[in-house]
């Protein structure tokens, strides 16, 4: 026993020493960008030499192209992320093969918080066969995830991060893009709509403590004051899990606002809508793309009628959305209608990636493909006039790709109808 233990101990020591000596140079240093430059994916071979600055991903014949997703698929915000995930799955389904290869999705959870985003991003970037990532759902997860994926040289497109900081000059990470609308764009559009179209001069706002809602209503307040000298009669904050909004609304009603803006999410949004109709029947109600979904209409019922919601113009793609996308979505998800709104942005993000892959992939005779990570990134940032279901997408230098034309819809008899611009 003793002897055996001693020998195995010595053996392990040796292996550890070798490991330590060998491993250090490759992985050391904060410059993580060099590590994943693996031509390590699969068997692919041949005489190909990767000239990409960051590295190449190679898929041998018959191997699927692997993309990752980091969306919130657990916890109370799960419907937000699952919806986007279904959007990606629909894109894969409808697309078929890309550059002669199937697409495989590695779905991770961003937990809608910073630590979840970190973990998901590390998981995906540590797998050298992942060529691109769709995520994250929440901006708080997006901040660390953008940093990690960019350090690793893996391009990431978010379908629903809206925080301005992610694409601001100072904070933008080189491999980060998004198809969701920047809060500054959407908040301003709503303020413009209220000023120009409705002609109101007083408004109140509610946010739910999420970076998204807080930022949107802040931008709205600012622009509302600037554009038409509007007055904010009150601001309130609620919890996303709250159900009783009577006191909040009563308190806001005391300021007699003409317009109430609450850019929050479906569950709480529906309750606010119902309770606001009783407490402030005269006030016009409005929300943003977090509620721009059939699930919201169903949850809010008749109370939603006459409400204004800003969001992407889904009629942009003509009949495609209704006739092809939605049936495929039901097929993939088992739900009869989309459960949130960002599936459309996720669908576009996935297709942008597929297009870019087809553009930069170097195909060998046997079907092996090589995708340069930097080249893929550059191709995505060069996206211009991409016809998606959320509009015509053109990416800026800091990664904002959403169609800047935000539309406002009114709910008429339980359906969205575009009224502005």
């Amino acid at each position, binding site marked *: 026993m003793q002897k055996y233990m001693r020998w195995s101990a010595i053996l392990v020591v040796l292996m550890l020493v070798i490991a330590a000596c060998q491993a250090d140079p490759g992985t050391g240093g904060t410059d993580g960008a060099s590590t994943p430059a693996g031509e390590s994916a699969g068997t692919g071979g041949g005489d190909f030499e990767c000239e990409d600055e960051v590295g190449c991903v190679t898929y041998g014949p018959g191997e699927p192209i692997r993309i990752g997703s980091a969306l919130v698929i657990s916890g*109370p915000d*799960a*419907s937000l992320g*699952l919806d986007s995930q279904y959007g990606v799955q629909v894109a894969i389904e409808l697309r078929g093969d890309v550059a002669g290869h199937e697409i495989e999705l590695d779905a991770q959870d961003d937990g809608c918080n910073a630590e979840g985003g970190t973990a998901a991003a590390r998981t995906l970037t540590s797998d050298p066969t992942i060529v691109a990532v769709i995520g994250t759902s929440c901006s708080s997860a997006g901040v660390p995830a953008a940093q990690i994926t960019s350090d690793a040289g893996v391009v990431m497109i978010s379908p629903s991060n809206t925080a301005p900081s992610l694409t601001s000059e100072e904070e933008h990470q080189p491999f980060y893009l998004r198809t969701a609308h920047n809060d500054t764009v959407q908040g301003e559009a709503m303020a413009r709509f209220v000023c120009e179209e409705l002609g109101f001069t007083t408004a109140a706002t509610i946010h739910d*403590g999420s970076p998204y809602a807080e930022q949107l209503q802040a931008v709205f307040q600012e622009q509302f004051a600037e554009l038409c000298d509007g007055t904010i009669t009150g*601001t*309130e*904050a*609620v*919890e996303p*899990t*709250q*159900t*009783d909004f*009577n*006191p*909040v609304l*009563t*308190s806001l*009603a*005391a300021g007699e606002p003409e317009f109430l803006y609450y850019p929050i999410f*479906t*569950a709480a949004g*529906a*309750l606010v809508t*119902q309770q606001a109709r*009783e*407490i402030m029947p005269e006030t016009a109600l409005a929300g943003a793309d977090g509620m721009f979904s059939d*699930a919201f209409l*169903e*949850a*809010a*019922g*008749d109370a939603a009628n006459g409400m204004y919601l800003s969001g992407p113009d889904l009629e942009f793609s003509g009949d495609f959305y209704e006739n092809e996308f939605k049936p495929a979505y039901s097929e993939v998800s088992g*739900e009869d209608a989309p*459960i949130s709104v960002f599936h459309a942005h996720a669908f576009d993000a996935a297709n942008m990636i597929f297009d870019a892959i087809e553009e930069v992939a170097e195909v060998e005779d046997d079907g092996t493909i090589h995708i340069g990570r930097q080249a893929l990134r550059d191709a995505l940032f060069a996206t211009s006039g991409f016809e998606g279901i959320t509009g015509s997408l053109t990416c800026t230098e800091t990664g904002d790709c959403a169609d800047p034309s935000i539309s406002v819809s009114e709910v008429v008899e339980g359906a969205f109808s575009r009224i502005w611009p």
Partner: protein
Amino acid sequence: MRLPERFTLTDAILWTIRIGVLTFVVIGSYLTVSQGLYAQSAWGSFITAGIALGSVYALIALGYTLVYGILFMINFAHGEVFMAGAFTAFFAATALNDIGMLESNLFVSIPAILLTAMVTSLIVAVLLERIAYRPLRRAPRLVPLITAIGASLFLQYTFRGLYGARPRSYPTLEILAGDFVILGMSIPRTRAIVIVAAVLLMVALFWLVERTRTGRSMRAVSEDKDVAAMMGINVDRVIVQTFAIGGVLAGAAGILYTLMFNQVSAHMGFLPGIKAFTAAVLGGIGNIAGAALGGLMLGILEAVGPYLLLAGFGVPSPTQLKDVIAFAVLVLVLVFRPNGILGRQEGT
């Protein structure tokens, strides 16, 4: 409370807290009222909303208190019992609505929905006791608490898996829209119904515990299990009955809750569960009247507190701090009365 013989440092600190809180409350209220931020009708609305929510908290809190009184354990998963009833009854309600019975035969449909909720909650509560808690009767007290936390997560995600992740909305009833006018004050019908129903249920529970054989056995078991067993009481059965009663009350609370807010989801039980737990402790856990009082207090505090105390100081978004007020009051109450408002105080 140990009575001090001389004025110690602790007393000094306690007195400072008393005076500080009092000053804060007086100045805050004065500033709010003097600025005339809210009209009288607004205050009325705050208070009725608070009472309505508080009575739901009270019903859930009764489940905590009953179980605590008998087993000395916190059934952390009780909020999920409440959710199970409300979530399941949603399907009964939509089914009734689809065949057009909901609105036309109110006296059939409402009891049917209520019964579905109560029976589901009862089954979940009893299963919970049988599977998760019974094997732990003699375990140290942290063990059942952790089990209950585990059961709470398990139930949330089970129902989420069974019924789906997205929140569902009950069909609305035309007849419940609008206000009642009582003594010149208008109160939304749903709130009035919730308050009345909650009071009726609490009276029924009172009667059950005080007057019936079951209630007597329950009280005997809570005094001393071993003596009760020697007197020929089937302790296991009494414990199951207690869970069942708590479950039925939670099921009813679930329906009242959805009457007001009409939305159900798998995670809807967690927060009301914690609030009800707080209410039970506030009132003095193990004490039925205490649970009712604690629930009402908590509901009113949440609805009125932020506006009365904070708005005057110009705090932005005062509602956000409603739970801060609620928990701060809990801490203060327990600092001065360590066993809750109606709990039996040591040494007094």
